[in-house]
């Protein structure tokens, strides 16, 4: 049967993909998407636990997470657009003005 473990493995894989994306990706937008991927992987894990442990807490948390993630995406994308207008690029390696 499909058990908790399967869901958690999928969640972990998604999370791992997300981390790799954040660390290795050169495009800022894709980095951002990977960040979202990580968040959703966490959501998946939370729902799986809620389903298999018969508690509603996990699902309630997921609502919070989705809301916050949406707000965060709005702000973040606005910042990226502003950055693009300034620098005409979204390559992470080109954005090193904060170097000491």
């Amino acid at each position, binding site marked *: 049967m499909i058990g908790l473990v399967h869901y958690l493995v999928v969640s972990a894989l998604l999370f791992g993909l997300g981390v790799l994306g954040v*660390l290795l990706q050169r495009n*800022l937008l894709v980095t951002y998407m990977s960040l979202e991927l990580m968040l959703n992987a966490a959501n998946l894990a939370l729902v799986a636990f809620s389903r298999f442990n018969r508690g509603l807490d996990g699902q309630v948390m997921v609502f919070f997470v989705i809301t916050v993630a949406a707000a965060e995406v709005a702000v973040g994308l606005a910042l990226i657009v502003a950055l693009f207008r300034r620098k005409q690029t979204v390559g992470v390696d080109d*954005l090193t003005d904060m*170097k*000491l």
Partner: protein
Amino acid sequence: MSQTFPWFILFLPLGAAVLITLFTHERRELSARLSIAAVVVSFWLSVLLFTDPRAADPGLTLSVNWLNVGGLSVDFGLLLDRLSLLMLLVVTAVAGAIHIYSYEYMRSDRSFSAYFAALSFFTFAMLGVVLSDNFLQMFMFWELVGVSSYLLIGFWHDRPAAADAGKKAFLTNRVGDAGFLAGIILLWAMLGSVNFDFLAQKLAEDPRRLGAFSTVAGLLIFCGAMAKSAQVPLHVWLPDAMEGPTPVSALIHAATMVAAGVFMLCRVFFLFGATPQWPAGLTWLDGISALEVIAWIGGITALMAAVIAIQQNDIKRILAYSTLSQLGYMVMAVGLGGRTSAMYHLTTHAFFKSLLFLGAGAVIYRLHHEQDIWRMGALRHKMPLTFGTFLLATLALCGVPPLSGYFSKDALLGRAYEQNVPLFLLGLFTAALTTFYMFRLIFVAFLGRPRSPHIEEVREVPGVMVLPMLFLAVPAALLGFWAVNHYLAEQFSSIPPEPVPPWYEQVFAPFQHLPLVAFLGLGAIACGFFAAWGIYGKASKDPLPEKLGGLARAMRNRFYFDELYARIIAVTQELLADFADWFDRWILAGVGVRGAHGTTEFFARLLRLVQTGNLRTYAILFGAGVVILLYALLTR
């Protein structure tokens, strides 16, 4: 009345110096008169004190407490006994004569007032040395004497030679003073006081009190006298000090300051009564007492200075080395235990030597500051009074009877003969040399053919300068008959002296007392005179350099002492200073401070590498940090 006199004697010259410095600087005449008045009044008060029978016996002390901290109590006190009363007379008399002489001699100098201020200050300091009743007070005035001589020798300070001479004198004196102070501290540490009477009493009770340090203490104290009285090896400043004005040379370097060393040794003679002993490590020197060392240093100084004097051509330098030589005699006498003869010679020397310097000053004054004797000549008829007094003083210096020097020198030589025959022979030889170089001076500078371009204008010096010379000539001639010897012996000798014989018997007394010494003395004088007459009687240039070659050159170059010292200083002090400077610059400031600065900056640069500005780097670091934290927390 007598109680206040010493305070006036001491402080009047200081008052004059302060007044001149603060108020009357612009008014030359007034300054000079203030200064002269102060010293003349001091002289008069000294005479009154001297003749007061209550003053010297049993000797009185007036003191106030100056410093009192823990075990160190220092008074400011004035000690009056025969020794100090005699010195007061000598110092004020000679100083007075020279003050008056300077009035004319320094007339055209633009720092006239400053000169008199310095002269008065010197008089104050010297009187302070004479009157002090404890070591520390004497040391203080000792230093002040040193500083006034620095100011006076370097009086014409825009002349490099004078400025250097002043510095040299002060520094050489300071080296001696360091030993002096070390000795004082040693005495205080071991005996608990710096007061002369107290120390003398303590040592009289128990001569072994100083233990292993008795000889060392004596020699350390002698260091001060060595520097002040210009004994070998601290003699190098005296000839250079001739850069000062001639009256200064007369006062300081003939009659008073240099005599201070001899005076001090007589004053603290009780020290040498302690049982001689050397500390551990130096015990191989056992058997040599401090007095022996002193006597030999005195003798060597006397001889060496006389030898150098033979080849000097500057009139003041000849007299300077002559002073060195006579001081050597005095120190030698003290070393042989003869305080009376040393002080006797000091007294007579003060008068005839200052007279010699004043005479030299008169010659220099008239010849437009010419000082080379080979450019003088035939001054005898042009300046008869000067010549007369100069000749008188020379004869006194050589020890020709019945002048003062004869008596004092005979006393010295007699003492040497009784105590230490090698030193006696040394003294005798030096007496011959003394006559030789002095008459060399007389033959070349005063007699013979004129060699100066100014000879036609030369005439006798004005009265203001002649009178002091005449004033000094009297004691130079007659001091032998004034029973100075007996006066001193009453304080120094434990044997009551015989009554003073009438004057005509006094002249022959030395012949009755120690005939060999007296005859040999006269013989030495005669040898020197005839040798000088033979070589220099008709000379127009010095024949000795060819005959003696290298030796003459060494004599002329003062046996290369200055060069030796310069070398020693370069190798020790200057090297240390260079090292210290290098260390300071490179190690302490370089490694230490800039090192600290550099290290901090290095770490800063290292940490800076973390701030790449790259988002991914930050993300990796962030992730790594989280992993480490989780690991640390979960493995607890």
